């Protein structure tokens, strides 16, 4: 019974992507599964056409910069909270949880109005900053686990040896929390690459990211290039997560096993 359920859910979760993979590799221009003949034409169209390439490049740039902002913010808030344990730091931490709790449309509309008022509508920087600030909750929570795992002895040892706070941070704290920082960075980058609503509301007509382009394509008559682009996403996301699983212990990060 147990295995049956696990298999059922796994099939349901994976099946849609098998179909998309089939469509993306099919020869026919109409959506058909299983494909009649195999062809890689849609992938080469995706990777040669300037419009698609531009969207891919924009999305990647936004993702990397946004992840940078998110992790720096999350690291800063956690560091201050760890050092001072002040009420202000706790309040900042709580505020950082906010974006995750609100429906994205509210954040998106607020940001859209804000950027229009500031006069940055249509600038990529606006999308980058908003993504960076709105997605910081995940690294915030993940890096907090890193700080929780720090033991006082190493810090005290470093201080006894005469290290300044900056040196302690550089040589002891940062290396120990680095895996968590990296995990947070990667997750924000993936989420930002995949995000549609906020990017679209902020400056979707001008800064066309990959999800926006896919959405517009699906809505106004699609071609199998969309399927190829989707598979590119799936491959990218899964690859990054597999690399992450080599660097950090994801099982321990998301649910501690009994032997801790």
């Amino acid at each position, binding site marked *: 019974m147990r295995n049956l359920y696990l298999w059922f859910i796994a099939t349901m979760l994976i099946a849609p992507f098998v179909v*998309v993979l089939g469509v993306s590799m099919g020869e026919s221009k109409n959506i058909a599964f299983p494909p009649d003949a195999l062809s890689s034409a849609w992938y080469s169209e995706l990777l040669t056409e300037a419009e698609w390439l531009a969207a891919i490049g924009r999305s990647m740039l936004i993702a990397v910069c946004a992840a940078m902002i998110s992790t720096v913010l999350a690291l800063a*808030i956690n560091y201050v909270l760890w050092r001072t344990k002040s009420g202000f730091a706790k309040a900042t931490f709580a505020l950082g949880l906010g974006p995750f709790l609100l429906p994205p449309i509210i954040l998106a509309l607020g940001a859209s109005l804000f950027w229009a008022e500031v006069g940055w509508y249509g600038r990529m920087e606006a999308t980058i900053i908003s993504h960076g600030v709105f997605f910081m909750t995940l690294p915030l929570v993940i890096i907090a686990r890193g700080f929780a795992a720090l033991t006082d002895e190493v810090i005290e040892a470093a201080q006894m040896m005469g290290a300044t706070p900056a040196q302690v941070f550089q040589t002891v704290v940062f290396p120990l929390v680095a895996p968590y920082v990296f995990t947070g960075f990667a997750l924000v980058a993936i989420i930002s690459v995949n995000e549609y*609503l906020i990017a679209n509301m902020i400056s979707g007509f001008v800064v066309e990211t990959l999800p926006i382009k896919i959405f517009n394509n699906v809505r106004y008559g699609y071609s199998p290039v969309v399927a190829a682009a989707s598979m590119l996403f799936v491959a990218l996301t899964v690859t990054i997560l597999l690399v992450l699983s080599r660097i950090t212990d994801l099982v321990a990060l998301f649910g501690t096993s009994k032997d801790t």
Partner: protein
Amino acid sequence: MIGPRTYGPRLIGGLAFGVLAVFFVIPLIFMIVVSFYQPDPMGFYKVDFVWENYGKFFSSFYYTVSFRSLYSAALGAVLVVALAFPLVLFVSDLSRRMQLFWIILLLSLMCLSEVIIGFAWLILMSESAGLPRLLEWVGLWKNPRSLSPSFGAMMIGLVFLGFSIVSLILYPSVSRRDRNIEEAAVTLGTPPALVFYKILIPTFRTSLVSVTLTMFVYLLGVFVMPTMLGRPKDWTMTVIISDKALGDANLPLGAALAVVMLIVTVLVLIVSALLTRRRAT
């Protein structure tokens, strides 16, 4: 821990707070302000203080839409949690390798764009590929038609979207649970179904309720699934807000609807916090 008179942490903390305040809090406040402005058909809005945008919310159309989206979000949230909780229980007892497989699978799905998941289901439900064609091939359905757009298709999309998130939220507490009571019950010959209803559900009741509420809020905000898989009458509040703000360029009305949604969200969050707190004390 370190010398008390250092300004470094305060400076860093203040900066981080400032960034959050400027780019997260101020936009929300500005949105509330705009919701009282006068819509301007030619451009953005005219500075004013009127209640008419909220008045429009109580006109029948938006009322129906918001009730409909409350209904589909609530139904979706319950379905997601009902499906995800058993899965998480089963996964937490698997070997470490298999747990890692499931975590990567769930994490990938959580990160994956709504647009792509919606597109995948769109294909899966279409006439020429996916389920209808499979049913035809098996011989169960003579003249297959596309299954979307429909309410059912949208619900499947919503459940799929929420599934990975709920599983990952529940996973830590479920995998760390004290297994002694279950084991004792099983040793005494209790059937697994009874263990599930009498032990596991009561143990996790609070977290199940709070994750259901979280999911409810999340599903209220879903945008792509209703537009791709649902009929216009299944559209949620999110779609209407975006439609008003971008499509009709009526920003004050969009803002007012978003404020109503914000209020609903905050109320749900408060209820959720109260429920968890009562458990803690």
